[in-house]
């Protein structure tokens, strides 16, 4: 079993921040995708934070791609958070998806969030 990937989400003012952690591979991609779909249904802005993701394979990338397309279809903004030295960022870079996705170094919002995520 993969290090069970966990999903947490925050809703605030129409923005959903989904924090994924653990290992994302083809075994849990399907489950995660359902959970994500459910969490972002009514959101205006979608943020998926991959800071705590320790493994991300092509299946995970495909998931991100699908979420991105779906958000666009629903007029939702979609941002991926992956700090520069994080594993997720490296994988996204290798896969050449930095053009396709909007990748941020840190979650949007207050400085406190940045401190928390980089200090975590």
């Amino acid at each position, binding site marked *: 079993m993969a290090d069970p990937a966990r999903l947490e989400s925050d809703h605030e003012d129409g923005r959903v921040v989904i924090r994924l952690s653990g*290992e994302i591979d*083809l075994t849990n991609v399907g489950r995660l995708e359902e959970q994500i779909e459910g969490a972002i249904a009514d959101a205006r802005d979608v943020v998926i934070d991959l800071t705590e993701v320790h*493994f991300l394979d*092509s299946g995970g*990338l*495909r998931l991100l791609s699908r979420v991105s397309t779906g958000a666009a279809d629903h007029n939702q903004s979609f941002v991926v958070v992956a700090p520069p030295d994080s594993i997720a960022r*490296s994988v996204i870079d290798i*896969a050449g998806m930095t053009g396709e996705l909007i990748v941020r170094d840190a979650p949007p919002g207050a400085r406190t969030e940045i401190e928390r995520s980089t200090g975590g």
Partner: protein
Amino acid sequence: MAEGRSHDGDIESAEAESKPTPPADRSVGARDGAGRDALVSHVRRRPDGAIGREAPLEAERIAHLAAVVEASSDAIVSKSLTGTIRSWNASATRIFGYTEDEIVGRSIRVLIPEERQAEEDEILSRLRQGEYIEHYETVRLTKDGRPLDVSLSISPIWDPSGRIIGASKIVRDISARKQAEDALAAANAKFESVFNQSGIFAGILDTEGNLRDVNVLALDACGYRREDVLDRPFWETPWWRGSEDVKERIRLAVRQAAAGDLFREALPYWTADGSRRIVDFAMHPIVDEAGVVRFLHPTGIDITDRLKAEEALRKLEAEERKIAVGLQRALLPARLLERPDVQLSALYEAGSDVLEVGGDWYDAFDLSDGRVGLTVGDVVGHGLSAAAAMGQLRTAMGALADHATGPGQLLERLDAFLARSGATDFATVCYAVVDPRTCVVEYASAGHLPMLVVSQGGVTAWLDGAQSPPLFGHCPARPQTSALLEPGSLLVLYSDGLVERRHERLDDSLDRLAAAARDVADSPLEDVCRTLVVRLGVDETRADDVAVLAVRLGPVRQTRYHRRFPARADELAQLRASLRGWLDDQAIGQPLQQALVLAVHEACANAVEHAYRLTEPGDVQVDMTQSADHEFLVEVRDFGRFQPSGSREDRGRGTGIMRQLTADFSRESTSAGTVVRFRVASGEPFHDG
């Protein structure tokens, strides 16, 4: 003239006696004894038989004779037949202490001790008969009452007419001689008693080797009589009759001792009834003050029974040792534990000088949590009981190990076992639990020497913490402690027979062990134990057993990774964990690890998704070799038939990642399956941390 008057009196008494004839050839000289009296008593029988009185013209000659008497060193005394002292020379004064004036005219009896007065009667009676008394040894008294050993020579004095008128006496002081004789007699008596009463055979030979004397024991114990053995060459005496070789040894003994050298040898000898026995034989030269050999002194102690007893004891000890060695071999591990993650090697040697076997042991066993228990112990004592006690302790330890919370508690439990079983009085033990994956060693020691660690870099350290007293059945609380070792380290457990030497401080011995261990740190493990034993000089001086257990922490540096697993998605996480673990052990940094793990995962994920769509489920096989410091060659193989699914774009992502991360990427599909090969040399774009 006073002498003349008393002389007349004596003549009267002499007349009453018979009249023996003085001998013709008696010359007057000293024997006459009475210088001045000789004027009257001087007698010479002329050749024609007539007795004539000498003319006063002889006075010169007589005066000369008087001077001779005075000069004599013997006391010369004359007396009348009633015992009255008539003359007294200077030596008499010297010997007896009386001056001439004091004693002339008194009775000779004043010189005679009370208990010997009867001697004088006897002497006088014989004198009257004309008898001479020669060298009569007796005791007389000095003026101050001191008894004196003397020798008397007494002769009668004749007057011209042939009558005995008195006696002259020569008194020789023999006290010095008597003392010497008494001392000699005492020495002889002592010698005799020693000679005959000591428990050894003894004899005296002359320097030619003839037997002159022999003691009672040598005869009685062997059944010989004196006449059977004396006065012949010693080598021809019946004790040695049974062998020409032995006779030759005796001849040699005589020659050697006659030359002044002691001879000593255990030899066979024969008793009268024909029994052959063994004697611890010696021939001593007896020398005088000048160092000249005067006698030869053979001695012997029968050692026949002692030799028999020693032989029997030797046989018994050899038998016991055989049993103990056999038992100990049976009690030691038949085969040492084998595990892929630690290398183990052990050696046991019994003490070489000692007849008995000690109670040393070693052991290595699996624990249920995957760790390894290691131990070396030493039961006090030797022989069968020590070997048996050792077996019990070893077995108990193996049984208790899994149930103890740690090494300290295990030793406490072992102590309790010792108390219950009474197997032995005490033992020393060291016990270590090694986790091969983390290289953490938990250990405790009950009075045992510290374990030695040598890192691959050759740095030595002693695991000398957690010491408690030896096991002795009273179970004090025993501490334990841990140490973190480097992968590839060598750990050595040993018994004190390996290091302890007489005349060497323990610290020096331990230094030698550390030096030797540094040298073998990289040797094949099976050579390590033997090399240590040889290097530490465990040879002729060692009396104790040696047990050595050498452990090399691994895993053994593997340069090849191999894993085969069912092609199922849920296997992939375990694959990644296994890969990471292996790469950690190879000390590969994070960026390269992540690149490798992702690349291999993608290849395996492909096989999981596509290889067995149309066939029975099968396996995926990963082989990875480290081809250089930071370079790996990978083969991912499946045994199905590649059947693509999903969109090209989807598939492309995985392949795209692989191509980005790797070099020399190839994929080859045949009917037997698909092989993906690639090389990963860089961790880019991954980062540390």
